[in-house]
């Protein structure tokens, strides 16, 4: 590497510097919203360096290509939306500290490294940076046991999965003599699929499955998502999950591509199991927050189909799905945050009773997000699923697409149940008081508009994903 290549690393460098600056600014700035604003400005500054960042440095350890840029776009949007929905919420939870924003930025930096990792070690580095920040963020409401418990569980299980990941990396290194993803691919094309190679594939698969919460490695998700601050749940179910998909895609579709016929059946099994577990258990939930946690498990099961299908079609469908999922999911969580007020949790299904009568606009937005999560046209959720199914059918997995459609139909039960509670039940007790704020309103507006816009006019997004993967 020499200094002429520094533009490739600029976004990450800028992000790191600004994250440190935001951390320091916390010491001097009293109004914590200002720190949040700084975080948003930092993202904008970082994004400015993205277009000139294409290239490969450190002998292929760090890759900035269309694929990683698309994911970074998701991370940035996710970060901005999370900051927007957080400020008022943190005050309600009496946890308004500036470190929150700095940690979000560090987590984002980790995700950026993951998306750009051309080497398993860099991947691990990014993953740990992201995960450590998330452990802290999960337990950010220090005075609440639920949050503390979630944090500890997440940390211990996360450490467990990191160990598995390292073990997998070690075994791959032992078999191929390299940790570089491209070199692994070329070494593997000349090798036979031995048992020890397959073992290392399984270890990597399990570690990534933990990150994107594929069953049976999803066990941490419901507890952690429920315990974490709602804004962090929204963040975690989108950004880090997308980062997990980014590395899953890069490692399995590039590095382990020669072993594709061996890992595809495993991934299909995990995908179906995940859809089953996520959807079936979501039906059981009375808490909307926990229901969304299970739904996020199920959606990971859908998105994996893109990787199973592979190729330009599959990968771009997966990327689009994650992008779309970001808007609809953060939108739904924003509504939960809107419902939360000082002495009211607003997470239970019963809290949504008759919302359409008392707060028609909020209910309308929730309706939109629920429709989109179910995949009803003309919302974005339909577009996302449509392209996934199409990729699956194109790759010869018609039966898998059918299974997914069946599970989508099951999912309608619990998504639309929220709608039924809002529109067909009478309000109970005193009316829910919403804790809106301009920034939360902005986040809701952005999410709702994009859910509708992508639903009605998807072609720019579809072509964008196709171009960056093609």
């Amino acid at each position, binding site marked *: 590497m020499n200094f002429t290549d520094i533009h490739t690393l600029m976004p990450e460098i800028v992000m790191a510097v600004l994250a440190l600056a935001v*951390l*320091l600014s916390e010491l001097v700035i009293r109004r914590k919203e200002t720190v949040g604003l700084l975080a948003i400005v930092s993202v904008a500054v970082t994004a400015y360096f993205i277009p000139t960042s294409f290239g490969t440095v450190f002998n292929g350890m760090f890759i900035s290509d269309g694929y990683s840029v698309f994911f970074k776009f998701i991370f940035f949007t996710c970060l901005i939306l999370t900051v927007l929905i957080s400020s008022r919420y943190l005050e309600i939870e009496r946890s308004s500290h500036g470190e929150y924003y700095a940690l979000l930025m560090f987590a984002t930096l980790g995700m950026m490294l993951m998306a750009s990792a051309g080497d398993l070690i860099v991947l691990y580095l990014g993953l740990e940076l992201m995960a450590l920040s998330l452990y802290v963020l999960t337990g950010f409401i220090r005075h609440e046991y639920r949050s503390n418990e979630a944090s500890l569980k997440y940390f211990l299980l996360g450490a467990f999965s990191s160990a598995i990941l390292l073990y997998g990396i070690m075994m791959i290194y*032992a*078999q*191929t*003599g390299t940790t570089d993803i491209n070199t692994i691919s070329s*070494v593997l094309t000349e090798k036979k699929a031995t048992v020890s190679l397959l073992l290392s594939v399984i270890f990597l698969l399990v570690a990534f499955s933990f990150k994107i919460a594929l069953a049976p490695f999803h066990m941490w998700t419901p507890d952690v998502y429920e315990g974490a601050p709602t804004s962090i749940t929204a963040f975690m179910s989108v950004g880090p999950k997308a980062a997990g998909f980014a590395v899953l895609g890069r490692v399995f579709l590039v590095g382990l591509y020669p072993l594709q016929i061996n890992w595809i059946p495993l991934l299909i099994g995990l995908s179906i199991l995940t859809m089953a577990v996520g959807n079936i258990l979501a039906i059981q939930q009375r808490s909307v927050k926990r229901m969304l946690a299970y739904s996020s498990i199920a959606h990971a099961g859908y998105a994996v189909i893109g990787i199973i299908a592979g190729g330009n079609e599959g990968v771009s469908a997966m990327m689009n799905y994650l992008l779309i999922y970001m808007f609809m999911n953060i939108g739904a969580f924003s509504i939960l945050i809107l419902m939360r007020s000082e002495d009211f949790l607003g997470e239970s299904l019963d809290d949504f009773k008759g919302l359409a009568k008392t707060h028609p606009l909020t209910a309308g937005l929730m309706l939109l997000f629920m429709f989109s999560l179910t995949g009803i046209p003309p919302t974005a959720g339909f577009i996302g699923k449509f392209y996934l199914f199409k990729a699956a059918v194109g790759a010869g997995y018609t039966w898998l697409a059918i299974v997914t459609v069946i599970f989508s139909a099951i999912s309608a039960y619990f998504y639309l149940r929220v709608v039924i509670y809002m529109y067909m039940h009478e309000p109970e007790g005193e009316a829910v008081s919403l804790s809106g704020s301009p920034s939360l309103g902005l986040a809701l507006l952005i999410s709702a508009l994009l859910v509708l816009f992508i639903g009605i006019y998807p072609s720019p997004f579809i072509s964008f994903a196709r171009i960056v993967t093609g």
Partner: protein
Amino acid sequence: MPGRYLPTEYLPVAIFIAISIAFGLGALIMGSMVRLRRPYREKLMPYESGIDPVGEPRVRFSIRFYIIAMLFVVFDVEAIFMYPWAIVFDKIGLFALIEMIIFIVILLVGYVYALKKEAFRWE
């Protein structure tokens, strides 16, 4: 040759570890074999400088210990990292200096943060 890599140059280290373990265990086993064994009540009591033990042996440590310990580890690792850097400094030159400055600045930010948050004050 990938796949059949045997780290022969680390063999002395392995032998060293084996000998030290054997030596420690050997001493203990030898002692237990040769010494007399005549226990009585006072001898079996926990050692508390001749005073009878009071209270539970498990007490809660102050959380401060953990913070101090964590900060210690961070700066400790920083110091350890400087040794190999110092050895190859001649070969890498200015670049190494800049890298180390960046590294230290990052740690410095953490230090300033910890200082301002009064992590070092024992209250």
